[in-house]
């Protein structure tokens, strides 16, 4: 909106001012900047030559060239030829909002350590080939935006100068459900870098995730994900995790704790932290933590008790359709069993279990489900059964041993010659 407002005023104004000089100025600059012969003579090396080469036909197709904006509109310091090294262009003279946002963002602020500015307008938008962001050929077009981000963020050397170690995130993102939605499915609605990292979705207003104003900061990431995943976010907010989180408790999980960050995958993806075989591990990352269980007075050994159950054994054997944590407790709207709306409230168990086991009897709610062994629940009876069988099995072994011992006694002591034993 800001850009188009600026354009609406500035572009016609410039057109009026510069119209008479347009053709002549452009031709004048091109005499050197588009001429191989001249560049070879003037520039110290080919790299320097490439930096100052401007192809007038390319420029004419750019958003600025098409609007008739001439070289000196931006390069105001150039008044005569030959000229000194050009000063950096101040894009903010026209794009005031964008320049202000960028200057205030992590990209525009000089880095604390070195004083270097991480990124300029041209780093993302290019210099002379700038196209409108909605133009598929633009360097910041949604479908290919990750490439321009990756030029820095996948460059370990460059990121190191700004104290950043993670240079895998673009690659990770491309393999995520979001990245695949963008590339494999070609969905323009798939979130791109700036959708999540831009404050309010504004590409120029990016801050580090650790900064509380970043939409990807743990404090607010649920709201950011919720911009698209509205229903899921609301479910989470109603569940025990979301309710606690909203009241400021940071021990409870938000979106990224279970789903990952750049790597967020569909739950059908085997690499997802909430893929059926991984759910128990993901939940147990907190629910098997002694400090948390003690702090919130939660039952322990949730993962172990699940793994020992039929569901857990079957799941470990590759049977993906059996129940995992989510099947009974829900995914986002998880409520404690004491909550009457909880899927595991005793009154709701028949319905919950009945989703997989139609017609299950109400007996299922009479007795504990999550037990590391049945001994926890039916201690005395289990103890009796256990010893009953231990004694019988032991008795059988002794019985077999006694038969052999008696035989040995007869054949070695009573009747050493083995008289009368020759069965047919």
């Amino acid at each position, binding site marked *: 909106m800001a850009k188009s407002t600026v354009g609406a005023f500035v572009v016609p104004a410039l057109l009026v001012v510069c119209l008479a000089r347009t053709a002549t100025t452009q031709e004048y600059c091109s005499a050197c900047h588009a001429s191989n012969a001249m560049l070879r003579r003037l520039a110290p090396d080919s790299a320097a030559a490439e930096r100052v080469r401007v192809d007038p036909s390319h420029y004419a197709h750019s958003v600025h060239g098409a609007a008739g904006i001439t070289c000196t509109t931006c390069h105001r310091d150039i008044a005569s030829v030959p000229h000194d090294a050009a000063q950096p262009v101040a894009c903010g003279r026209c794009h005031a909002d964008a320049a202000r946002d960028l200057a205030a963002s992590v990209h525009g602020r000089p880095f604390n350590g070195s004083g270097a500015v991480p990124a300029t307008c041209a780093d993302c938008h290019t210099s002379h080939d700038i196209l409108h962001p909605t133009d598929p050929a633009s360097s910041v077009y949604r479908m290919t935006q990750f490439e321009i981000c990756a030029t820095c963020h996948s460059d370990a050397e460059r990121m190191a100068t700004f104290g950043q170690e993670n240079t895998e995130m673009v690659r990770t993102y491309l393999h995520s459900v979001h990245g695949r939605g963008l590339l494999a499915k070609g969905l323009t609605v798939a979130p791109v870098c700036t959708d999540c990292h831009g404050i309010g979705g504004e590409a120029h207003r990016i801050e580090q995730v650790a900064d509380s104003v970043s939409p990807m900061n743990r404090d607010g990431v649920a709201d950011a994900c919720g911009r698209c995943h509205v229903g899921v976010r609301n479910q989470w907010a109603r569940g025990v995790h979301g309710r606690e989180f909203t009241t400021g408790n940071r021990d409870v999980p938000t979106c990224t704790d279970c789903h990952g960050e750049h790597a967020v995958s569909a739950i059908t993806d085997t690499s997802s932290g909430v893929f059926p075989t991984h759910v128990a591990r993901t939940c147990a990352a907190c629910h098997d933590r002694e400090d948390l269980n003690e702090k919130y007075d939660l039952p322990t050994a949730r993962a172990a008790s699940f793994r020992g159950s039929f569901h*857990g*054994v079957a799941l470990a054997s590759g049977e993906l359709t059996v129940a995992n944590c989510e099947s009974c407790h829900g995914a986002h709207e998880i409520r404690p069993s004491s909550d009457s709306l909880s899927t595991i409230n005793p009154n709701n168990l028949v319905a919950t279990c009945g989703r997989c*086991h139609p017609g299950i009897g109400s007996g299922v709610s009479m007795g504990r489900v999550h037990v590391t062994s049945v001994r926890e629940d039916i201690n005395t*009876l289990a103890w009796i059964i256990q010893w009953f069988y231990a004694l019988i*099995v032991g008795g*059988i072994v002794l019985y077999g041993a006694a038969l*052999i011992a008696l035989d040995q006694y007869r054949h070695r002591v009573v009747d050493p010659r083995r008289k009368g034993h020759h*069965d047919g």
Partner: protein
Amino acid sequence: MAEWQPYEPDLDQLYVVRFTIAARVQHYVLIVTMTVLLITGLPLLIPGIGPRVVEGGFAFRTFAHRLAGAVMIGLSLFHVGWALLTREGRRDFTFMLPTLQDLRDLVHFVRYQLGKVDEPPPYDKFDPFEKFEYLSVVWGTIVMIVTGLTMWFFEFVLRLFPKWVYDVAVLIHGYEAVLAFTAIILLHLYHVHLKPGVFPMSRVWLDGKMSVRHLKEHHPRAYARWLEEQRLQRSRAGAPDPP
């Protein structure tokens, strides 16, 4: 006038049919179903045992276990019918029933093995050990079928009982399986493989035949009955008594 007796050398040639084909086939089916049940049940008793061979292996395990269980239920029903409705089934089942004589035979057996008496115990067709093993199988099969069906149709069972009943069934099914495996292996190992005079294996489960010598020495009361029948047949046929 002496009564008829088989000649001593003929004792090895003559035989009696100890197990009819119906009994043998029941035994074979029991072997197969029990083997399948033990193998396919083990991964639940000891999670993580065995290789994860193929995708869907666990579902196949469940299917195979239930199929074998269903066959075993069918076998049990057949056995009940056979034992009640057929002449040979009724006769063998009657011989299998424990009596007071079994206790006396057992005491006799121990005294014989210890050298206190010279004559071996006068067993009938089935000795006390065989009766014990048969009744163990009957008992074990009933327990396994009841607890197995409880787990198979737990949705229904939970309409009638609280969950701990199901938990007990799970517990018992596992322990009873261990017991059955131990008992079958150990007792078979002794009675039909390692026992002197039987080693390396009694063949009666294959052809159903037992030599009259074995009958005479190990099942004297059954031998006496056999002798009576032979003599009766001979007198009916008008055969001359031996000199």
